[in-house]
C-alpha cells in the first residue's frame, strides 16, 4: 500500500533526480565532440527552418565522416529561441555555459540576430549569423565577433537593380511587409534605382503588417496608382495572397513585377501552377544548377532525406561548413583565434566559393536572379543567372562609413 | 421644521414618460423612525435612490440638516453623515465581519490611503464595540461570504453606524429574513436610533414590523404621497385601505 512515508521517499528521489538534471553537465572530456551552439526560431518559421535543420545535419555528417576537425568530431546543439530576442539571449547563454558550446551559429529574424550579435560582442564569443537578412548586423550595428553568411537584403535588392533599370519604367509602386526587412529592402531599392535612373517616380507605397495583408485592398490600391512596375518584398502567406488577388484583379497586366525572395522554393512552391510568370525574383533554382559543388550537395541531400533541398537547406549546410572551416583555420577553440580565423575565411559552398570579408564580416555568398515560369504545374525560375555576392555590395568606402570602428 | 435631519420638498422623477415620483415632500426628525410604505411599483426605491445620491431628481430639494444634497454622489452624502443598508445586502464578501466594519471606520477617518500600515491593527476596539451592539461580536472573525442572511443584515447595520450617522437610510432592511428575526432587527435599530439620536427612514413590506416599530408612516402610491401620520392614523386612513385592499398583497 502506498503510505505517506513511501510516497515521501519516492518524491525525494524524484526531486534529487531533477536537481541533478538542473545541475552541472560534466566537463567535456578531451576527445568528446566539439560542440557548436545553434539557436533558431524553429517553431515560428518552420517552413524555412525545417529544411535548414536538415542542411545542418547533412553538413555535420559530412564533416565527421571526413574525420572531424582538430581530431575531434563536431556536434551541433540546437535550441529554439521562440522568435524572441529575450529567450534567444537566454538560450545562447545556456549553450555557452551549460552545454559548453565553443561558439554560436544560427538565428533567422533580424531582431533576434541583432540581439544575439550584441550578446556575442558582450560575451566576446564568435557568432556566425546564418540567416538574418538585416543589413545592420554587419554595417550599422556590426561588431568584431559577428559574421553573417546569407546574402543580405541590400545585396539581394542590388542584384535586381540592373534588370529594373534596364526596363526604364517610370512609375513604380512598392509593397513591403511592415518591419525592418521590408523597410530596408524598400529604402535600398529606391536609393539604388534612383542612382541609375534619376527620373524614376515612386507613386505609391503599401506597408501591410507581416502575415496580415489585406491583399484585395492592397492590390486595388496599387492598381489605382497606375504603376508601370512594382517592387515587392512580400514572402510567405502574404505573397501567396497578393499573387492571387493581383491576378484576379488584373493588377499585373502590362506591369513588371520584382519580388525579393519569391524564387526561393520555400515561397515559390506553395503557389504551384499559380506562380506568377515573368516576375523578376531572387531565389534558388535547385533542379537546374549544374555546378559540381551543387550537384554533390544535391545528391547527398536527396540521398539522405528523400526530399529536395530548399534555400534554408543550403544556408544550414553552409553555416556548419563555415564553422568547421573556421575551427580548422584557427587550430584551436580560443575565441580570439576563432574570430581572427573567420576574417577573410574562404570556403566552398553549394553556391561556390565564398569569403567572409574582413572589412564588414559579410560573406560573399551570392544568389540566383531570374524570372518565374511555370513548368508541369509548378513554379520554376527561368532565364536565371548566378550573381556573386561580392558584386552586389557597396564600395569599401561606403561600408567603412556605415560600420562603427571597433 | 428646523429640527428635521432630513427634509424633502417637491421631489419629482420621471423615466421616459412615466412619472415615478411626483411632488413628494416629507421630513424625518432626529431619533425618529419613519417608515415609507406603498405597494410594489409605488416609487419607494426611486424615492430612496434620490435621497442617497444614486439617482438625481428632475425637481425638488433634499436637505440634510439644512444643506442641499441634490446632485451629490453617494460617497459624498455618506461623508455628510448618512448611513445605508441595502435591500440585497452589500458587504465585502472576502473580508471578515470585523474587517467590514473596520473598513467603514478607516474610510470615515480618511486613513485608507496608507500603503504600508497593516489594516488589521487600527480601529479594532471600535469595530468590536459596534459588533457587540448589533450582536455579531462572536462572529467577528468569520468571512462575510459565509454568513447567514440575517447576520449580514446586522453587519450592514454595524457598518452603517460606523460613521456616526445623523441619518440612516434602510431599503427593505428585513427582506429575506425570518419573521422573528425581522422584528428583532428593527427593535435593535429603533433602540440604537433613539440612544444615538439618529433619524431613520426605512421602507418595509412587513406590516407587522412597520406598525410595531415606526414612529410615523408615510404612504406612497403611484409616485404620490397619499397619507402620512402615526401608525394609528395611517391604519385608519381610507385611502391607504383602498390602496392596500385594491392591490392584493
Amino acid at each position, binding site marked *: 500500500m502506498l503510505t505517506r512515508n513511501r510516497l515521501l521517499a519516492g518524491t525525494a528521489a524524484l526531486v534529487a533526480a531533477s536537481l541533478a538534471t538542473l545541475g552541472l553537465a560534466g566537463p567535456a572530456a578531451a576527445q568528446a565532440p566539439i560542440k557548436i551552439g545553434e539557436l533558431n526560431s524553429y517553431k515560428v518559421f*518552420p517552413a524555412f527552418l*525545417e529544411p535548414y535543420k536538415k542542411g545542418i545535419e547533412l553538413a555535420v555528417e559530412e564533416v565527421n565522416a571526413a574525420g572531424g576537425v582538430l581530431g575531434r568530431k563536431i556536434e551541433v546543439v540546437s535550441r529554439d529561441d521562440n522568435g524572441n530576442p529575450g529567450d534567444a539571449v537566454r538560450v545562447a547563454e*545556456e549553450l555557452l555555459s551549460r552545454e559548453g558550446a565553443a561558439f554560436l551559429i544560427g538565428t533567422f529574424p*533580424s531582431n533576434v540576430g541583432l540581439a544575439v550579435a550584441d550578446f556575442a560582442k558582450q560575451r566576446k564569443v564568435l557568432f556566425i549569423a546564418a540567416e538574418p537578412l538585416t543589413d545592420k548586423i554587419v554595417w550599422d550595428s556590426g561588431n568584431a565577433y559577428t559574421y553573417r553568411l546569407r546574402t543580405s537584403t541590400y545585396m539581394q535588392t542590388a542584384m535586381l537593380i540592373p534588370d529594373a533599370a534596364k526596363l526604364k519604367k517610370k512609375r513604380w509602386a512598392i509593397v513591403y511587409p511592415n518591419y525592418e526587412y521590408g523597410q530596408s529592402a524598400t529604402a535600398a531599392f529606391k536609393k539604388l534605382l534612383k542612382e541609375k535612373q534619376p527620373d524614376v517616380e515612386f507613386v505609391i*507605397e503599401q506597408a*501591410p503588417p507581416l502575415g*496580415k495583408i489585406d491583399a484585395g485592398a492592397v492590390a486595388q*490600391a496599387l492598381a489605382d496608382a497606375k504603376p508601370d512596375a512594382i517592387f515587392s518584398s512580400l514572402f510567405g502567406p502574404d505573397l501567396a495572397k497578393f499573387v492571387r488577388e493581383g491576378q484576379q484583379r488584373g493588377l499585373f497586366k502590362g506591369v513588371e513585377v520584382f519580388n525579393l525572395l519569391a524564387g526561393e522554393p520555400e515561397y515559390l512552391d506553395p503557389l504551384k501552377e499559380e506562380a506568377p510568370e515573368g516576375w523578376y525574383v531572387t531565389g534558388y533554382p535547385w533542379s537546374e544548377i549544374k555546378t559540381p559543388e551543387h550537384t554533390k550537395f544535391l545528391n547527398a541531400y536527396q540521398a539522405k532525406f528523400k526530399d529536395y533541398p530548399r534555400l534554408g537547406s543550403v544556408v544550414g549546410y553552409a553555416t556548419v561548413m563555415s564553422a568547421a572551416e573556421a575551427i580548422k583555420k584557427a587550430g584551436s577553440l580560443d575565441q580570439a583565434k576563432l574570430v581572427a580565423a573567420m576574417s577573410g575565411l574562404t570556403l566552398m559552398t553549394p553556391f561556390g566559393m565564398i569569403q567572409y570579408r574582413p572589412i564588414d564580416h559579410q560573406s560573399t555568398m551570392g544568389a540566383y536572379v531570374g524570372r518565374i515560369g511555370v513548368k508541369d504545374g509548378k513554379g520554376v525560375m527561368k532565364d536565371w543567372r548566378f550573381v556573386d555576392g561580392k558584386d552586389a555590395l557597396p564600395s569599401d568606402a561606403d561600408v567603412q562609413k556605415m560600420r562603427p570602428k571597433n | 421644521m428646523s429640527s428635521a435631519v432630513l427634509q424633502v420638498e417637491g421631489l419629482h422623477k420621471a423615466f421616459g414618460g412615466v412619472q415615478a415620483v411626483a411632488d413628494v415632500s416629507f421630513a424625518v426628525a432626529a431619533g425618529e423612525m419613519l417608515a415609507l410604505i406603498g405597494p410594489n411599483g409605488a416609487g419607494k426605491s426611486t424615492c430612496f435612490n434620490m435621497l442617497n445620491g444614486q439617482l438625481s431628481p428632475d425637481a425638488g430639494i433634499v436637505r440634510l440638516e439644512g444643506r442641499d444634497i441634490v446632485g451629490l454622489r453617494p460617497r459624498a452624502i455618506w461623508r455628510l453623515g448618512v448611513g445605508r443598508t441595502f435591500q440585497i445586502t452589500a458587504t*465585502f464578501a472576502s473580508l471578515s465581519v470585523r474587517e467590514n466594519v473596520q*473598513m467603514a471606520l478607516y474610510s470615515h477617518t480618511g486613513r485608507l490611503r496608507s500603503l504600508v500600515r497593516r489594516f488589521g491593527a487600527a480601529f479594532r476596539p471600535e469595530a468590536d464595540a459596534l459588533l457587540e451592539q448589533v450582536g455579531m461580536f462572536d462572529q467577528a472573525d468569520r468571512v462575510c461570504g459565509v454568513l447567514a442572511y440575517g447576520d449580514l443584515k446586522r453587519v450592514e447595520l454595524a457598518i452603517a453606524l460606523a460613521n456616526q450617522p445623523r441619518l440612516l437610510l434602510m431599503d427593505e432592511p428585513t427582506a429575506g429574513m425570518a419573521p422573528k428575526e425581522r422584528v428583532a432587527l428593527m427593535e435593535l435599530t429603533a433602540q440604537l436610533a433613539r440612544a444615538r439620536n439618529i433619524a431613520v427612514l426605512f421602507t418595509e413590506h412587513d406590516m407587522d414590523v412597520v406598525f410595531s416599530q415606526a414612529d410615523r408612516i408615510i404612504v406612497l402610491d403611484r409616485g404620490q404621497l397619499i397619507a402620512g401620520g402615526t401608525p394609528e392614523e395611517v391604519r385608519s386612513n381610507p385611502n391607504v385601505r383602498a390602496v392596500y385592499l385594491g392591490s392584493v398583497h
Partner: protein
Amino acid sequence: MTFSSILIQLLNGLAAASSLFLVSAGLSLIFGVTRIVNFAHGSLYMLGLYGAYSLIELFGRTPLGFWSAVVLAALVVGLVGVLIELAVLRRIYRAPELFQLLATFAIVLIIKDIALFTWGAEDLVGPRAPGLSMAVEIMGKRVPAYDLLLIVIGPLVLAAIWLLLTRTRWGALVRAATQDREMVGALGVDQAKLFTSVFFVGAVLAGLGGALQIPREPANLELDLAVIADAFVVTVVGGLGSIGGAFLAAVIIGVAKAFCIGMGSVTWFGVEISFSKLTLVVEFLIMALVLVVRPYGLLGKPQAAQRVAAEPAPPFKVPSWGFALVWLALLVIVPWVTDRYAAILLTDIVCFALFSVSLHFIMGPAGMVSFGHAAYFGIGAYAAGLLLKRAGLPMEAALLIAPLIAGAFAIVYGWFCVRLSGVYLAMLTLAFAQISWSIVFQWDSVTGGSNGVFGVWPSPWLADKTVYYYLALALCGAGIAFLWRVMFSPFGYALRAGRDSPLRAEAIGIDLRRFQWAAFVLVGALAGLAGAVYAFSKGSISPSTISIAQSTDGLVMVLLGGVETLTGPVVGAAIFTWLRDVVARNTEFWRAVIGLVILLIVLLFPQGLVGGLKALVMRWREWPA
C-alpha cells in the same frame, strides 16, 4: 481616391468584414453563454482552413467537392469544439473566473503542433472556388466574384443566427443565459447540454469562417493567433454577446482597414501620414475609441451583475518570515552550488515573478483583469534602454527612473481603464498595449523599430551574471514584498472591498476609481521595474516585450499558480519559465508538451498549482503514515 476606387475599397472591406464576422460571431456566442474567454477560437478557424484544404484535395476541385468540403470542414471543427468542451472545459466550469482561459491557451499550443505534425510546415495554398474564380467588372475595375459571394454570406449567416436565436427554444435559452447565467441554471435547464451545443455552434462558425477563406488565404500555422486578436476586438467593439453588434463592428473594422490601404500616404499640412502603415493597429485604435465612449461596446448592454462566486475567495495569508527567509536563502545559494546558467535562468524567473505578481495584484485583489500588462513591462524595458542609450544616463539611474516612466504611462492608460469593468476593461488594456507596441514598432529613429534597442548592458560592476542576478533578486524581491505588504494595507483592503462590492464601497465613502487608478499606477511602475531589470539582463530590447504574447505569458503564470493565493503567481512564473526552458530544449514538439502539462495542471488543480497543493497538504495530514 476616385469614386470608383472608394466603391471598390468598400467592397473589399465588406468582404473582409464577412470573414471577420463569422469568427467573431462564434466567439461572441460562446462568451455570452459560458463566459469563457476562448483563446482557442483562432485555432478552430485555422483547423477550418486546413480541414477544407484536405477535404477539397479528397473530393476534387469541382463545385460540389468544394462546397461539401467547406461545409464538412466546418462541421468537423464543430465536433472538435464539442470535444474540447466535453474533455476539458466541462470539468472546470466551477473554477475561478478566467481559469478556463488557461485551458484554452494550452489547447492553442496543442492544436498548433498537431497541425504542424499533420499538414507540415509549408503554407498550403488552396484552390480558387470552382465556378467562381473569375472577376466581375464593376466601374471598370475587377472584383473577384468570390469576394462578392462573401459579402452576401455575412448577412445571410447573421440572419440565420438571428432566426436561430429568436425563433427556437434553444435560441431563447441562449439569450437568457447570455443575460443571466444563474437564472438559466435556476430554471432547471440542463446547463451542460446547453454549453456543449453552444460550443458546437460557435466552433462551426469559426470553422466555416476558416473554410470559406480557402480561396483567399493559404493555410498556415500563424493563422490562429492572427485571427484571435481580431475576433476579440470585433466581439468587444460590437458588445459582448451581441451578434448584430459583432456584425456592425466587423463591417466598421473591415471597411476602415480597406480605406486605410486605399488612402495610402497622405500629406496634410506638410506632414506625411502613411495610412497604409496604420493597418498595423487600426482595429485597436477603433476599439479604444469605442470603449472610451461606449463602455459596453456599440450594441452591448451592461452585463448582469458579475458572476457571484459560489464561495468567496479565501482571504490571502501572509507568508511567514521563516518561510520567506528559507526561500530567500535558497535563492541566494543556488548560483553557488550549480552553474552560471542557473543564475541566468533565475534572473528571468525573478523578473517574470515580479511581472506576474504585479498582474496578480491588479487581477486578484483589485479585481481588474488586464490583457495588456506587457505594456508596462515593455515600457519599463524601453525606458531603461533609451535612457541609457539615447539620454546617456548611467545604467543605475536608468534602472531606477524606468519604473517611474512606466508608472507615468499607467497614469494615462489607467485613467481610461478604471472607467470600465470586466472583459471590456481587459480589452481596453489590450488596446493600449497594442497601441504602445505599434508606436514602438514604427518609431525607428527612437525605438529602433522592429529590431529594437541594443547594447543595453549593465555597468561593469554588475556585468557578472551572478552579481546581476543578486541585483535582480534584490529589486524584484523587494518589489514583490512591497506589493504583498500593500495587499494587507488599508489601501489593499480598500481595493479588495471595491472588488467585492462596488456599491457598498461607494456607500461608505470610498472613491473606488481613485483607488483603482492608483493601483494601476502602482503595478504599472512595478511591472516597469521588472521590465527594466529584464532589459539589462538581456542587453537588448525588442517590441516583443510589449507584445500580446508577453501579456498572455503573464496571465498564464498567474493562473497557473493560482489567482486565489499570494504565492501562486511566483510559483506560476517559476514553473512556466522553467518548463519552457527544459521542454524546449529536449523535444521537437515542445509546444504541445507544454500545452499538455498545463492542461494536466488545469484538470488536476482547478485552483491553480498553489491552491491545489494546499488542498493536497490538507489531505496529507489525514493520511496513514
